[in-house]
């Protein structure tokens, strides 16, 4: 017998084929080739194996921690960093979509110079650097403060760099501009506590929550963190012997997604939220529900709010007296209560703070923390001063980075005119926006994911942002550009040569504070963790009412006013260049790729307009045009317009989409008196939504907390569903049977899951026209239904729930496929074999949930957006059907790991993309064969709330939903 390793002909061919395929794979993707060119391979780059880097999210000031998944040297997915106390492992839609900012095809690729004739010329970095240095030097010769920096707050270290930059040129004008800022809250805090830092909130510690116009689940402060808290607040729990959920009330002009998840929406005109807030305080004060140790002088307080008797407020605002009284009473009686304000006038913030203070909730549901980070954002006064200086010709050179004042500053600020007066405007950034259009030197800057940076969102939390991949374009970090320019000036001696060095130096300084830490160990650990997360300590609070003046009721409201609110996905406009966000239906209106003017049917009647009629909305500051959306989700007399659209630049996805609502607002205002007239034009508002009426079908179900407490199963038809009926022998699942439990009560509609799915599963976007033609490709969508008319009192304000493939046991899609492209896997998933699909589309016809998606065309990802594609998931071609796979690639990955390590799969080891993203943990995935799995336990623990969508069809879904919970109206 022959000795040695035996290899059969068969295995040899197998091996050879595998090796051949492996060798051929890099050839499929020419763009990826340069990423693995090392002669000596980088040990971090193992083809096929992802690596993860902790970093921070820069899409909004909340500062969530992020873990970036890197494949073959490029980032393919962003997920929340579980170590970070803000995001706690979740990431919102905007955070997920940062990738499309990184890979945006319209990013500036090379430095450009705009000649005097307006012609754009591409130059080399050397030329650009020289021009920058020369012009800045020339500008600084004019005297002090002739050079300015105008950017967005990009972290404490960046702030230092920017200050060093202007300092090097003999200036102190560094503006850190944030269009949506916390100034009103800071002013309020200053008024009664003498401090300008922001408190942090614990909604989950409250029993009653009142939001005065704060869309805390969408755009207000820290939506991911607050959504998590809110879901805990709304989780059924025992209180005083009965099962209950937190009681939430929203006061504001529009039924936002946040308002829809509250028990009550008190529709007010914009600007009068404060009036209601003071009136609530009036109720409390009158009832003498003022905490003894709150420090407030009851008499003075009574005097201060004497104008806000509920009767008077009711007369001014139209809010019923009983509503205000009830608000005050529930707030005062609650074991923990929290009032928050999101309006642009500090009066409401002040009222909310006093409400929290007099009820003794500071330190409980709301708290100021020791060691709040230094304020990063410039005050509106500072911004105005800088703009005035520009307009006055007092600034010769301005370096703009990260901010888009031309777009976000109101017309009344005349910022474009001011910038025009500056002889030398440098712009550094990604996709050239409206402000870039005014610059004479345009520099491509690193995306935050390519650069070193840090964040300090609040006390005790410092996020470290490290670059997660090589730059996509010929760009440089803004910090490096600034430092290089500063170093070029004769006067300066800078402590750091680059932003990377600066960040490291700053963080090593932190290490010295942390006792006994070896600096290098510390540096490794913070990079691994994504930051430094320390225990937070309550700050001692001292009341200082000296600056407190009795509030004055708002002036009478105009008959018609416009109310502009930040778009949940586009925020202040920075999201508009990302197709994922443009194509994500706004949860309440379900509209994509447009601006809309939401008006009440009554207002529509008065104006004589119908849906899709374009109206001109005119305020004293300007006019915009937008198509009308007629819904009862807004108060009569109010035109609600989302901010964020209406770009005139900012890349192909943002340009000429909708209207810019900033343009008709006064500085620092969210609303204005307006007139509206029909223009005679129409424009279809595009939405993937068909009917808003569920027609009594069991798609999204709800029950009242009172029913839950009584143990009532709400569905009268429940007894009719006796199944399962099966002609064929039932499936046998010898190993796993994957399933999901989705808590509709926890779902806020934020659509983070939808974006996560786009990112994970290479789901293409189809554009406005594509959505209009019914070709949206999302595998998971948020179902939005209005409660039926007449039953609104005994239903949630909106039905919102994720709808995805239900992975039915008795799947209607499977037997109709003639070629077994749709089939049942042995782990209970409705598999879809793209290669086998011939495109009869019968499966989608037969799918009652309508969750299958057909590829009408070859999907397109304009380079370099294609670099984001997940290599673990096939990119589908034209003519095939696709659908949710329960992230089968993640299942496979985990199963393979378990097999390699020779162990059983652990519960919770597989996390689907939607589940991972969900800020409220509404989705749990697991094995139905394993009764102890978290997914099955969640069903068991909420037995009364279990339902399966359209169960009477005998589809036997693998997804069990937990019913939404609402509070019965008219009850206690």
């Amino acid at each position: 017998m022959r000795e040695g390793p035996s290899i059969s002909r068969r295995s040899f061919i197998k091996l050879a084929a595998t090796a051949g395929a492996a060798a051929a794979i890099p050839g499929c993707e020419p763009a990826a080739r340069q990423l693995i060119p090392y002669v000596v391979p980088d040990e971090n780059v193992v083809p096929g194996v992802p690596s993860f880097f902790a970093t921070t999210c820069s899409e909004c000031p909340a500062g969530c921690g992020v873990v970036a998944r890197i494949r073959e040297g490029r980032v393919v997915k962003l997920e929340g960093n579980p170590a970070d106390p803000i995001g706690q492992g979740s990431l919102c839609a905007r955070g997920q979509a940062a990738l499309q900012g990184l890979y945006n095809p319209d990013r500036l690729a090379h430095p450009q110079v705009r000649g005097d004739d307006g012609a754009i010329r591409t130059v080399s970095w050397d030329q650009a650097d020289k021009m920058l240095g020369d012009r800045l030097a020339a500008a600084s010769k004019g005297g002090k403060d002739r050079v300015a920096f105008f950017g967005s707050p990009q972290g404490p270290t960046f702030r230092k760099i920017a200050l060093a930059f202007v300092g090097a040129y003999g200036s102190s004008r560094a503006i850190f501009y944030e269009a949506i800022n916390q100034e009103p809250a800071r002013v309020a805090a200053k008024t009664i506590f003498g401090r300008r830092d922001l408190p942090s909130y614990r909604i989950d510690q409250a029993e009653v929550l009142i939001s005065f116009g704060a869309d805390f689940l969408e755009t207000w402060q820290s939506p991911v963190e607050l959504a998590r808290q809110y879901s805990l607040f709304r989780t059924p729990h025992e209180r005083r012997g009965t099962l209950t959920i937190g009681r939430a009330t929203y006061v504001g002009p529009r039924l936002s997604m946040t308002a829809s998840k509250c028990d009550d929406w008190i529709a007010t005109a914009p600007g009068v939220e404060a009036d209601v807030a003071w009136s609530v305080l009036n109720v409390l004060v009158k009832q003498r529900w003022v905490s003894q140790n709150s420090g407030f002088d009851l008499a003075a307080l009574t005097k201060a709010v004497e104008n806000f008797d509920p009767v008077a407020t009711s007369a001014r605002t139209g809010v019923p007296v009983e509503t205000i009284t009830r608000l005050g009473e529930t707030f005062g009686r609650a074991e923990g209560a929290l009032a928050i304000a999101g309006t642009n006038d500090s009066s409401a913030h002040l009222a909310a703070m006093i409400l929290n203070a007099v009820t003794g909730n500071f330190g409980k549901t709301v708290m100021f923390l020791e060691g709040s980070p230094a304020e990063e954002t410039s005050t509106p006064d500072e911004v105005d001063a800088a703009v005035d200086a520009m307009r006055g010709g007092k600034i010769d050179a301005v370096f703009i980075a990260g901010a888009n004042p031309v777009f976000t500053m109101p017309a009344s600020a005349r910022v474009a005119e001011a910038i025009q007066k500056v002889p030398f405007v440098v712009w550094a950034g990604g996709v050239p926006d409206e402000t870039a259009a005014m610059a004479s030197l345009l520099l491509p800057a690193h995306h935050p994911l390519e650069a070193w940076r840090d964040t300090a969102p609040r006390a005790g939390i410092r996020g470290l942002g490290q670059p997660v991949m090589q730059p996509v374009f010929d760009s440089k970090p803004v910090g490096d550009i600034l430092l290089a320019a500063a170093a070029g000036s004769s006067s300066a001696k800078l402590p750091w040569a680059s932003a990377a060095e600066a960040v490291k130096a700053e963080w090593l300084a932190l290490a010295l504070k942390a006792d006994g830490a070896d600096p290098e160990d510390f540096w490794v650990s913070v990079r691994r963790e994504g930051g430094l997360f320390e225990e937070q300590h309550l700050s001692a609070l001292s009341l200082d009412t000296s600056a407190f003046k009795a509030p004055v009721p708002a002036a009478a409201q105009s008959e018609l006013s416009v109310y502009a609110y930040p778009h949940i996905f586009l925020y202040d406009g920075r999201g508009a260049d990302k197709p994922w966000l443009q194509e994500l239906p706004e949860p309440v209106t379900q509209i994509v790729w447009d601006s809309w003017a939401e008006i009440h049917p009554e207002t529509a009647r008065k104006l004589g307009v119908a849906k899709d009629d374009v109206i001109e909305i005119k305020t004293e500051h300007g006019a915009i045009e937008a198509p009308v959306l007629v819904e009862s989700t807004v108060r009569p007399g109010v035109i609600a317009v989302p901010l964020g659209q209406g770009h005139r630049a900012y890349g192909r996805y943002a340009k000429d989409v909708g209207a810019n609502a900033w343009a008709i607002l006064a500085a620092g205002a969210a609303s204005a008196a307006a007139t509206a007239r029909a223009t005679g034009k129409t424009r279809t508002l595009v939405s993937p939504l068909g009917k808003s009426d569920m027609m009594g079908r069991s798609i999204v179900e709800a029950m009242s907390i009172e029913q839950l407490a009584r143990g009532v199963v709400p569905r009268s038809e429940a007894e009719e569903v006796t199944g399962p009926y099966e002609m064929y022998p039932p499936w046998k699942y010898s190993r796993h049977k994957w399933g999901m439990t989705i808590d509709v009560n926890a779902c806020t509609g934020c659509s983070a899951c939808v974006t996560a799915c786009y990112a994970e599963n290479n789901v293409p976007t189809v554009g406005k026209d594509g959505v209009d033609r019914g070709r949206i490709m999302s595998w998971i969508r948020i179902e939005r239904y209005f409660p039926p008319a007449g039953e609104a009192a005994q239903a949630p304000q909106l039905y919102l729930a994720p709808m995805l493939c239900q992975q039915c046991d008795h799947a209607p899609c499977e037997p109709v496929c003639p070629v077994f492209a749709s089939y049942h896997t042995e782990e209970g998933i409705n598999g879809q074999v793209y290669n086998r699909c011939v495109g009869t589309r019968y499966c989608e016809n037969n799918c009652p949930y309508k969750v299958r998606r057909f590829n009408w065309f070859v999907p397109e990802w304009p380079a370099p957006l294609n670099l984001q594609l997940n290599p673990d998931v096939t990119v589908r071609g034209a003519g095939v059907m696709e659908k949710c796979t329960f992230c089968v690639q993640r299942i496979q990955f985990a199963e393979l790991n378990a097999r390699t390590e020779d162990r059983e799969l652990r519960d919770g080891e597989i996390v689907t993309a939607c589940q991972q993203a969900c800020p409220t943990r509404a989705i749990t995935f697991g094995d139905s064969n394993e009764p102890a799995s978290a997914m099955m336990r969640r069903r068991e623990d909420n037995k009364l709330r279990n339902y399966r969508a359209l169960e009477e069809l005998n589809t036997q879904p693998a997804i069990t939903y937990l019913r939404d919970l609402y509070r019965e109206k008219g009850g206690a």
Partner: protein
Amino acid sequence: MAAAPKIPVEPSYRDIDRSVLRVMEPAGLAYWAWIGFCFTLVAIAAGFWLRQIYSGLGVTGLRQPVMWAIYITNFVFWVGIAHSGTLISAILFLFRTKWRTAVYRAAETMTIFAVATAGLFPLIHLGRVWFFYWLLPYPNQRYLQPDFRSPLVWDAFAVSTYLTISALFWTMGLIPDVANAREAATGWRKKFYTALAMGWQGTDRQWRHYSMAYLLMAGLATPLVLSVHSVVSWDFAMAINPGWHSTIFAPYFVAGAIFSGVAMVITLLIPMRKLLGIEDLLTEWHFDNLAKVVLLTSLVVSYAYITEAFMTWYTGDPIEQMTFHMRYFGPWGWMYWVMVLCNCVIPLLLFSPRIRVNMRALWIITIFVNIGMWFERFVIIAGSLTANIEPSQWAGYRPSITEIMITVGSFAWFVGLFSLFAKFLPIISMTELKEGIVWLRKALKMDRVKAA
């Protein structure tokens, strides 16, 4: 075309031969212009199809949730048209119906071309047409077979079986007639007819075998009349969609198929007999009988509509009821009422014996029937999908130019093929006409008496 010589009231076999063979004489410019027109439209449609294959089905108006619309409507429509041919040629043959002899060849030809047209649509509608053969069981290395639970696989079998059997039946029926044509023909026509005649000599032995084979083929084809359209209807009935999921679909669809098919036969024959000058062979008596079939099936179809509505109410299923409510009163309600008008109301005129033999009126009525039957399929197929189980996914549908042009092309393809046939092959079976010459004589006498 020269005026047709009147056939004697007591025609001989030779008179019949002459009348039929005269039609097959070389055609004039008008004929070729017509053929050119038809096939230009076909070429345009083919161009649109190529574009669709190249860029994807997105060029259609199909969308979420209306995954099937005009293509499948056309498929069902053309399969339906096909049915009457087999009904007339096979079932009426077995029943020895006297009036069928003059019309059956044309009806059967219509069947072949209608199935040939219908068969294109499942291909046109596929997302990846280049893999259409995956729907058929064929030996392959991957051991992959189609899923026999899928109605689409049944469909593939049903339609291909139908095409095969009716093509065979048709070719066989042609044998004695082309042999007849062979005798007079010259040039390439002679070769062509010789090949088709398969050595037919008209011997006793051949006639005996021929008759037996024809009877057997008729027996084989008969169940197909019922089965094919039943299977087609199961494409819908087996699905769980409201508006589709119904047990009455098979008889309902078969009746509808015969209804539309016979109407189409009339629609084709009326201009044909005039243009080809064979009024004497296709008499009023024939049309009177065809019209009666249309009337009967119209009543059956109307009954089915009522039953469908009743069953929907009787089930008490609100989802089903809502879909039907949308069908009757939704944005596409007008289509339903057009259908009722065309399929249920207008055919009632055929109760009048005078209208049954008024060629102009009959022609217009049958065209309405065809319009109505097309709408019926569209309302059922696309209409039911628009108002599905998931209200958030309701949506309308609007056909694109691609779908419209391909539909137009399919009509041109069908009419063009039929026109070619009418000129090159005996459009009326001389053999059978001779067999039933007594009945023809009777009919002619009746006509002359009436005319006098």
